């Protein structure tokens, strides 16, 4: 690489001190270089030290950690040993840091423009006028709407994806030599993620600045990075060019990471049902249900979240519910569990109508429908032993006590692949993946018929998440429990669900067997979702952004509409005058596949060709081009 070397990390070591005064190494001798105009990705799972290393470029460590060796050189000067005043110039001036959550980074009481320009003005790099001018330039470059005036708004007046891009403007305002991006797209929906990735990539290229990109998502890395450093336990497992790591990984750990990346959602991935559990009886059913918050006026909720929902879960089936944040997918599960009584419509369990409110339901009805919370960290009482957490449903629903209960707890722990000795631990003493298993185990202990899983893998690392999915599949086969599996991650859902329900702005836009939903004809929104899932292929982002549907689909926000099709303002095929005023009819296709759209089946089929190219074109490409990795 003939480019100028900008930053050099040499045998960096960072340690922590325990309460007993022992030194525990966190980063164990890491070395890599960053050249001008290059994006270096640090990838690894939680605990791999990737954030700690990225912060070291600012000569900063989190409290409790300290530098125990090595150097970080910016243009040949070690930043770790700089005097504090020079380090101050470095931070925000020469090296800029973008935190994971833009929402937490911006001060809600100060206008965006003021915050974007603050650090550049503070470091004396620009005066306020120049900085504002530069900021507006950046807003344009980042393709923010209303770029000339967005600086006068407050953070709550823009969307999450926009805020994330504004944070990039904040970092770039003072023209830093190096940008550190810490998981900048992890918390975003796929359709928003694309938009932000595209903006980041464009700006980095135009500004010719160097960046460190910290993430655990290999598919995202494939889009932005030039050089990849794979970390595990504070050590480098493998590093090399993006092309080499993605297409030709050498280290076993890298290969394992690749395996955990779920394949692109496509037909034919669903797990086959074992026949003993396969009964075509509806287990739980939601009929013409409308729900929302803020009380009910004239039979309509004041703040509607879900409208006219019909979903049924058959015995032993897994129904995946997918949609962007705010589409009402969690609300659907909450209504089923009785946490939110619906404004209209029925919930039917085994042919019997369930009461809407939790307190009116009978004990055996409660026992049959179990809700699994998203965050195991908050869903488990930190002051209760695991044995008591799992034991309580046994005692509460089944009246088990003493030795019987103890034996059953061990049995359930075994079912979730944890040793029985865990019964005497507190939740704090477990890892994230283990806590999630306990969270599942608690619901399992009730011996339910339906488990409502709300984003149970979202907060987990990819390998740990993949293991949890494996566990869920095994549990389904073993116990015959039906699952409602809620996720924003289409890949996860398609690898596990038998049926998929696509929600958009509180309505079901498409539902049916997984294989049918992932095959044409698609609802335009489903297609947008599918084509937004990043592929582990270099150049995918550019290819995708050229498509007409994508360009139209991601630029606008979601509105929950009272009438018409909620997707009309993002739909590339919207029929003006019809879509925004009339509720779309439901097209009934084979095998219970349903699409709610004004377009005719032929129209939906026809527009498929282009997407087919996106979806399957690369596979053919892969055959004659060894550069491209097919997951």
């Amino acid at each position, binding site marked *: 690489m003939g480019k100028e070397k900008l930053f050099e990390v040499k045998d960096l070591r960072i340690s922590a001190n325990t309460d007993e005064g022992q030194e525990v190494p966190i980063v164990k001798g890491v070395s890599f270089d960053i050249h001008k105009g290059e994006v270096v990705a640090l990838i690894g799972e939680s605990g791999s030290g990737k954030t700690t290393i990225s912060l070291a470029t600012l000569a900063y460590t989190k409290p409790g950690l300290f530098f125990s060796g090595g150097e970080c050189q910016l243009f040949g000067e070690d930043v770790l040993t700089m005097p504090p005043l020079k380090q101050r110039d470095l931070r925000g001036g020469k090296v800029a840091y973008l935190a994971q959550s833009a929402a937490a980074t911006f001060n809600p009481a100060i206008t965006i423009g003021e915050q974007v320009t603050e650090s550049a003005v503070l470091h004396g790099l620009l005066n306020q006028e120049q900085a504002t001018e530069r900021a507006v330039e950046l807003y344009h470059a980042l393709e923010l709407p209303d770029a000339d005036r967005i600086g006068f708004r407050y953070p709550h007046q823009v969307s999450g994806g926009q805020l994330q891009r504004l944070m990039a403007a904040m970092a770039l305002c003072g023209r830093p030599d190096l940008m550190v991006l810490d998981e900048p797209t992890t918390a975003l929906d796929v359709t928003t993620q694309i938009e932000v990735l595209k903006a980041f990539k464009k700006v980095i290229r135009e500004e010719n600045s160097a960046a460190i990109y910290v993430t655990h998502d290999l598919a995202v890395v494939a889009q932005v990075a030039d050089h990849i450093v794979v970390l595990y336990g504070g050590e*480098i497992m*493998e590093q090399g060019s993006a092309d080499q790591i993605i297409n030709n990984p050498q280290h*076993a750990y890298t290969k394992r990471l690749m395996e955990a990346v779920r394949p692109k959602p496509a037909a034919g991935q669903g797990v086959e049902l074992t026949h003993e559990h396969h009964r075509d009886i509806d287990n739980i059913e939601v009929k013409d249900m409308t729900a929302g918050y803020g009380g009910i006026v004239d039979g309509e909720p004041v703040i509607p979240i879900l409208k006219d929902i019909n979903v049924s879960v058959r015995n032993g089936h897994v129904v995946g519910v997918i949609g962007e944040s705010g589409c009402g997918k969690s609300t659907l599960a909450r209504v089923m569990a009785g946490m939110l009584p619906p404004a209209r419509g029925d919930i039917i369990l085994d042919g019997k109508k369930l009461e809407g409110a939790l307190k009116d339901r009978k004990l055996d009805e409660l026992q049959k429908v179990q809700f699994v919370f998203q965050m195991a960290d908050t869903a488990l009482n930190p002051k209760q032993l695991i044995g008591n957490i799992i034991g309580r449903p046994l005692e*509460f629903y089944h009246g088990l006590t003493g030795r019987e209960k103890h034996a059953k707890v061990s049995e359930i722990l075994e079912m979730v692949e944890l040793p029985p000795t865990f019964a005497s631990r507190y939740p704090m003493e477990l890892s994230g993946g283990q806590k999630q298993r306990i969270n599942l185990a608690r619901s399992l202990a009730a011996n339910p018929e339906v488990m409502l899983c709300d984003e149970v893998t979202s907060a987990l690392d990819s390998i740990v998440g993949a293991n949890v999915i494996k566990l869920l599949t095994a549990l389904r086969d073993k116990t015959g429990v039906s699952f409602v599996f809620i996720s924003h991650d289409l890949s996860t859902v398609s690898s596990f669900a038998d049926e998929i329900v696509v929600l958009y702005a509180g309505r079901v836009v498409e539902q049916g067997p997984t294989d049918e939903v992932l095959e044409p004809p698609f609802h335009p929104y489903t297609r947008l979702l599918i084509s937004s899932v990043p592929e582990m292929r270099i150049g995918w982002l550019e290819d995708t952004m050229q498509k007409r549907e994508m360009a139209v689909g991601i630029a606008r926000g979601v509105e929950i509409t009272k009438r018409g099709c909620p997707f009309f303002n993002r739909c590339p095929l919207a029929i003006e005058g019809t879509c925004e005023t009339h509720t779309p009819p439901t097209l009934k296709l084979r095998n219970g596949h349903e699409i709610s759209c004004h377009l005719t089946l032929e129209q939906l089929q026809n527009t498929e060709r282009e997407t087919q190219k996106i979806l399957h074109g690369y596979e053919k490409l892969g055959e004659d081009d060894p550069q491209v990795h097919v997951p």
Partner: protein
Amino acid sequence: MTEQTASKKEEEVLAELDSFAELPDAPPKRKFRLSWLGWLSVGIVVFWLLICLIGPSIAPFHEMDMEGDDSFLDAYSGEYGTFYLGTDYLGRDTLSRILFGARNTIGISLAATLLAYLMGITLGILAAVKGGWIDMGISRVNDAILALPTIMLGLIVIAALGSSIPILIGTAAVIYATSVFRIARALGQDIMVQDFVEAAHVRGEGIWWIIKSEVLPNAAMPLATDFGLRLVFVVLFISSLSFLGLGVQPPASDWGSMVRENLQGLTYGSYAAIWPALAIASFTIAVNLIVDDVSAKSGGSLAKKMV
């Protein structure tokens, strides 16, 4: 191109991933250990509790005996026996009065604080759990009591009902239950919106089980931290009432009033006011140190935040 800088071999990494790599390897340590300061504090508290029991029987004089001819005698003086800590403004033995007074001061303040906690926590958690009108009702009454100056309120109640130790305890308890209520309610509201409480709701648990098993264990540590502080306030409150003649009735002794009545002695270089002050300080500081130590050891981030 690929650099192998890692000290771990590929096989080791894979083995870690496959085996229970997610496990923290060492079995958890949950031994309850106090620091030396914690143990010292436990010693002090136990010592004073013992004095409450046996104080009067080991005291060299009776608390009411005016043995000395002169007030404010120095330590180790006197014709009728040794005044180890000197005499007070009426010539009574300071040491004996401290030994007798322990019962009043510690007994009354401990009883009042415990009662305040019982009332405050019960009502506070009830308000947090039930919400709505119950919360509104209790909270507004509580605000009204909080708005009144504590001494004024105490004066009025005691003036109306007469001064006796049960009434003293009851008054102090009601007055200090208001702040406990505030804390318990805030904590309860925080905990009630946690996912694990919602999980219990979805399971169909009754309200008492949720309070007992989910809310109280999580509220215990911050409340305990506050307990130490509140105890000090009650001691001071009782002593101010005593000073006004409405608390512990003379000639019976309590530490708070001993400080007040002997204040003038400071100008003559007498320590008569210092000794009871030290007694109060040693007891209350020790209680606070124990609470701090326990909450630090149990990772009481919430407790630390409150302090």
